[in-house]
């Protein structure tokens, strides 16, 4: 008898007690399914976060007034503004790694259309803002050069704001809304951006030129920018360089001596994104580790059942030996039985794990990215579990004395 004949022999033995075999394999099924689904969900979540951050603009940096607290929270809005328009111009001209820079000031205000009104975040900025955000209009246009420099009463709406004010599918370009009791003309609607990582709706916004904002909506402090400066670096690789240049220029302009803290902070979104990703990765790793533990428990289940099986089939083993089974035949048979259980469980677990991952991905809107290497790894690991936990009962079986075994009650 060779190895090729061992497999059908083992499978037939397992089939004789099908319920028990299935229940035993269940442990491995659950273990492998957990690992696969955890990893797939983790990868999907990671991809989704990446996509969101990409949509925010990976070259983006934010410069805000005030220094960061130790927790990295924004201390900017609310504290005394320290950034000036002159600072802005300096960043635009002196920093080689900076491509665009735009001031951003915002407040909550109510827009009134003919039929209804809607309170939203009204942002005052320049035309560079749309370049930095990579945000294009689907209807009409954004600020022209002239709009930005004058205090023209024009407004660009986000999709949500437009739908709320004029109804879905309606083109509001050319229509009028009232803001702070003044008529503003809608000159464009922006493409849909979706949700921010913080959960806010990007499309629930209205943008007006900076000068208009400062003169008509919320008076500013003359030269100071009561908000932030949004910056895009020349390329994704230059964000760090840009960050350094911005810090250098502003420290110089604000006459900050080397020992003192900055009165501004520069946030590199790429860093925030990768910190977010690291967190996700740690979590995924932890969940996968737990799943691996459950796989090991499944292995222990296999060993347990195989030991019971060996005891129950003692007479059978004695008989097999009597008619010519060598010790390694017996070892091979029981080992293959354990392996079959674990690998069948592994295969089923991969299928179920993928199904769960697909369902979760659909429910929470992740991309579903099944990875063949993870599936193979989990399957291979289940084979390892089968061998590791099957070897002890198999050896026990092979070591039986045929006479004792035949006498066993």
């Amino acid at each position: 008898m060779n190895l090729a004949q061992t497999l059908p022999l083992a499978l037939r033995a397992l089939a004789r007690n099908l319920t028990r075999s299935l229940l035993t394999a269940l442990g491995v099924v659950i273990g492998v399914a957990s690992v696969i689904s955890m990893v797939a969900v983790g990868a999907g979540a990671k991809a989704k976060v990446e996509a969101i951050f990409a949509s925010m603009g990976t070259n983006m940096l934010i410069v805000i007034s005030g220094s960061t607290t130790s927790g990295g929270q924004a201390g900017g809005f609310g504290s005394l503004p320290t950034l000036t328009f002159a600072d802005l111009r300096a960043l635009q001209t002196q920093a080689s790694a900076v491509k665009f820079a735009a001031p951003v000031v915002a407040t909550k205000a109510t827009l009134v259309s003919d039929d209804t009104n809607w309170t939203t975040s009204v942002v005052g900025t320049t035309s560079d803002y749309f370049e930095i955000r990579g945000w294009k209009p689907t209807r009409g246009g954004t600020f022209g050069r002239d709009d930005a420099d004058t205090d023209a009463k024009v407004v660009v709406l986000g999709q949500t704001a437009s739908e709320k004010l004029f109804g879905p599918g309606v083109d509001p370009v050319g229509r009028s809304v009232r803001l702070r009791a003044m008529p503003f003309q809608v000159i464009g609607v922006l493409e849909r951006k979706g949700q921010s990582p913080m959960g806010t709706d990007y499309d629930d916004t209205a943008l007006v030129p900076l000068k208009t904002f400062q003169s008509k909506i919320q008076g500013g402090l003359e030269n100071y920018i009561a908000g932030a400066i949004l910056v895009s670096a020349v390329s994704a690789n230059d964000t760090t360089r840009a960050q350094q240049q911005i810090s250098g220029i502003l420290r110089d302009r604000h006459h900050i001596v080397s020992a003192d803290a900055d009165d501004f902070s520069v946030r590199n979104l790429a860093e925030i994104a990768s910190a977010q990703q690291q967190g996700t990765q740690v979590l995924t790793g932890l969940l996968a580790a737990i799943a691996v533990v459950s796989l090991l428990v499944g292995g222990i289940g296999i060993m347990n059942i195989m030991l019971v099986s060996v005891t129950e089939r003692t007479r059978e083993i004695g008989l097999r030996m009597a008619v010519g089974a060598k010790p390694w035949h017996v070892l091979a048979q029981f080992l293959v039985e354990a392996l079959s259980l674990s690998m069948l469980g592994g295969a089923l677990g991969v299928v179920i794990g993928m199904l769960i991952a697909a369902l979760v991905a659909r429910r929470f809107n992740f991309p579903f990215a099944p990875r063949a290497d993870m599936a193979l790894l989990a399957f291979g690991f289940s084979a390892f579990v089968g061998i590791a936990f099957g070897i002890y009962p198999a050896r026990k079986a092979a070591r039986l004395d045929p006479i004792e075994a035949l006498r066993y009650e």
Partner: protein
Amino acid sequence: MTDRPLMLARSLTKAYQVGDEALPVLDRVSLEVKPGEFVAIMGASGSGKSTLMNILGCLDRPTSGSYLLDGRDVSRMGRSQLAEIRNELLGFVFQNFNLLSRTSALENVELPLIYAGVERTARSARARSALERVGLADRLSHRPSQLSGGQQQRVAIARAIVNRPRVLLADEPTGNLDSKTSTSVMALFQELWRDGLTIVFVTHEPDVARYASRLLVMRDGQIVSDTLQTPAQAGTDLAAMRVA
């Protein structure tokens, strides 16, 4: 028919260690079995008959002495080699049949052929013909639970002869059967013997032992009597029982 003994045992001793005492279960037993003999071994429990059978059947090794099976010295062979010898030269029948449950009669009989490395079609054909030989051609796919005691023992006999062994060894083959079934099983043994098979069996029933051509009696680890006899005709007895 060659006169070289099939089984040649010289001064077999088997001792078990109990504490610091060595208890001899077999005490310098010598025995020759020639091809074509039908040997019955009788004895009370503790007489050593089972131990002798185990050694003759290459399931156990003697503490001292030598044993040649078909000219081969098996007393020093390892477990793996002994398994091969058993597969090649011997067939076993047990008191409690020892069939694989939830397995068909055909698959049960195929078992020794699997370990002999015979491929599937040949295996199936040979198992089928062995079952026909014992009169169970119409029960090939039956499981042990669907067979009577006598039929189960016949399946076991078919399994024992499927690999064409030199010797068939039976340990209390009729122990779990009623008298009519016992007689029919012994009739089958006698058929096989007349066709040339060498058979050695252990029994505690004198009624069963009289079907053999040679009778050995054991006591306290030794053979105390070894006589040839005219075997009773199991077939005739069976016919008589059927009529009655």
